[in-house]
């Protein structure tokens, strides 16, 4: 009973946060002074018909609170986020495609980072205070500290001759939607390497430190001594007790950070011209494409909420102590 309550509470929290995010989004982009922002219909080169439609859909000639209601309506019911100033295309469809691209690259990069982080973190904790520990921890700190874009730029500097560093234009919108031949996959893969590696290098440091910390904490717990007292060999204790418990904070961290990585991938996408959400934000800023910017911001916020929620559920599943 308790545990079902918990899930419901987390769902409620997630939904409320979504709502708050949407509202903040609205306030930022519509209700604030700076008239260029608030007028959705001011798409340059838009035909009068388009303008009229937009004005009607978003109630741009009505009082603010009505606009808010219409905004919610359009967003939730019609999934309409307006039209991009850049090309008069619906924001929703464009963002959907770009989100897929971002997710693909982020997934690969994060996977690298997690693997490196877990391995190095574990080894560091196991050989605590040894040479391996110091080297590993300090390397983690160094990469954690270097600006993401700098790491990307260094990789370009070093590997431009060997791997593609740009050139994935919007064609990649068809990333996951079938019809890809082997060469197409290979092409995407090659283009993805440097950005994914950059992301991995930026991220792994934090994972190493957290895994190390979690393992050290776990290795010092009483139940590990008890397991040793039972005559169990070390390897078994590590796998069956220590790792199992250390997984808790690790999983939480990874799941939580996924939400922010999607946002942080912006820098990587810019450096490598990867056509994802981050790239979309960048271009929208440059061209003052406010509907696009607003849409991207909302999508990013929602993804953070989503991944946080997943993290909550995972933690809940792994830790039987959660009752509240």
């Amino acid at each position, binding site marked *: 009973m308790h545990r079902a309550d918990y899930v419901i509470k987390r769902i409620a*929290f997630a939904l409320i*946060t979504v709502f*708050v*995010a949407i509202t*903040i989004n609205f306030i*930022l*982009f519509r209700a*604030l002074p*700076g008239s260029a*922002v608030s007028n959705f219909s001011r798409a340059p080169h838009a035909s009068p018909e388009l303008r009229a439609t937009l004005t009607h859909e978003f109630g741009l000639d009505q009082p603010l609170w009505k606009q808010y209601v219409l905004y919610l309506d359009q967003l939730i019911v019609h999934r309409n986020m307006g039209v991009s100033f850049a090309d008069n295309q619906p924001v929703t469809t464009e963002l959907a495609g770009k989100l897929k691209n971002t997710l693909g690259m982020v997934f690969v990069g994060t996977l690298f980072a997690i693997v490196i982080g877990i391995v190095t973190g574990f080894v560091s*904790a*196991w*050989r*605590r205070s040894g040479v391996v520990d110091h080297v590993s921890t300090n390397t983690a*700190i*160094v990469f*954690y*500290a*270097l*600006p*993401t*874009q*700098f790491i990307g*730029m*260094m990789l*370009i*500097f070093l590997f*431009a001759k060997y791997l593609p*560093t740009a050139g994935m234009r919007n064609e990649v919108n068809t990333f996951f939607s079938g019809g890809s031949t082997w060469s197409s996959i290979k092409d995407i893969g090659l283009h993805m390497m440097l950005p994914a590696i950059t992301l991995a290098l930026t991220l792994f440091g934090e994972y190493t430190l957290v895994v190390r910390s979690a393992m050290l*904490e776990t*290795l*010092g*717990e009483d139940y*590990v*001594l008890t397991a*040793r007292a039972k005559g169990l060999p*070390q390897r078994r*204790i*590590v796998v069956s007790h*220590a790792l199992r418990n250390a997984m808790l904070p690790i999983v939480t961290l990874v799941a939580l950070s996924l*939400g*922010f990585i*999607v*946002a*942080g991938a*912006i*820098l990587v996408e*810019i*450096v490598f011209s990867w056509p994802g959400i981050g790239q979309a*934000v*960048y271009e929208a*800023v*440059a061209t*003052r494409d406010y509907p696009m*910017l607003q849409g991207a*911001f909302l999508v*990013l*916020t929602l993804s*953070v909420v989503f991944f*946080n929620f997943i993290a909550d559920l995972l933690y809940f599943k792994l830790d039987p102590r959660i009752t509240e």
Partner: protein
Amino acid sequence: MKTVEPAIAEGTALEARPSKGGSPVVQVLRERKSALLGLFIVGFFVLVAVIGPSLAPYSPNVPSGPVYAAPSAHHVLGTDGSGVDVLSEMMYGGRTSLIVGFAAALVAMIVGGGIGVLAGYSGGATDVGLMRMTDYFLVIPDLVLMIVIATVFGPSLSHVILVIGLLLWTTTARIVRSQVKSIRERVYVRRARSLGASHRRIVVQHILPQVAPLLIATTVLTIAYAIFDESALAFLGVGVPGISWGTMLEHAFERTAMTEGAWWAFVPPGLAIGLVVIGCYLMGQAIEDALNPRLRVAHLSIRTWRVRSPQTVTDELAKDEAG
């Protein structure tokens, strides 16, 4: 669960070094090598930021050499994509980056600290309300919000500082809040309350001094984030106007320094940011560790306890007899 550590601790209790006095922060800086290293690094860059510009060989805005000239006697760090001397840019830019970093962290410290104290001390509905608000703030991706606000309000030094500071306060608030909560329950605070001390007095005299070290540690770490964020904002074209390490990276990217082979245009600023971040991290982490000492004993390890071999006994007997 009692293990042997207390025995060891007690056995050496008389050897424990008494604190040399002074605030815990100063003590940590004195005793831990990592903190000293961090202080040294950050101190170095601060020094450069303060004195540098007056020693800069060239102007940071006006070209003084060919585009992407390699490091030489004339230009120690070469020139960038516009022909401007990189070393001079580094000095002036360092000033801006550090100002943004420190100022934003200060904003975060004040706001975060204030909210943390308020929430932790008041408890009840205020606490819950404030923490909910913090939760929502936490969810919003910092960078994107910064971009949006910078776009909407226009870029300027103060805007950037405010934006970064107003997004970094949440961590500080949480940490401060939990510390305030535990301090509030301590005996001497409750005693002061029962003696009728006003809230203001309690906060100022008892709570703030106790929270200060942790707040300082968190703020130092925030400086690192702030400098990082500044470079990210600059890279996205919404950073501070003028020269900063962040804008240097952005310029280098715009003018494809990487493919031109002009590493001197982006490596110095990138490394500088990295070093300052490392320095702040070392200091902040050392203070935090000192404040929350966690005697983490590992119950598993590669080596095991040893049995005294008869040979060792014989050796020691021989030593005793000889000496």
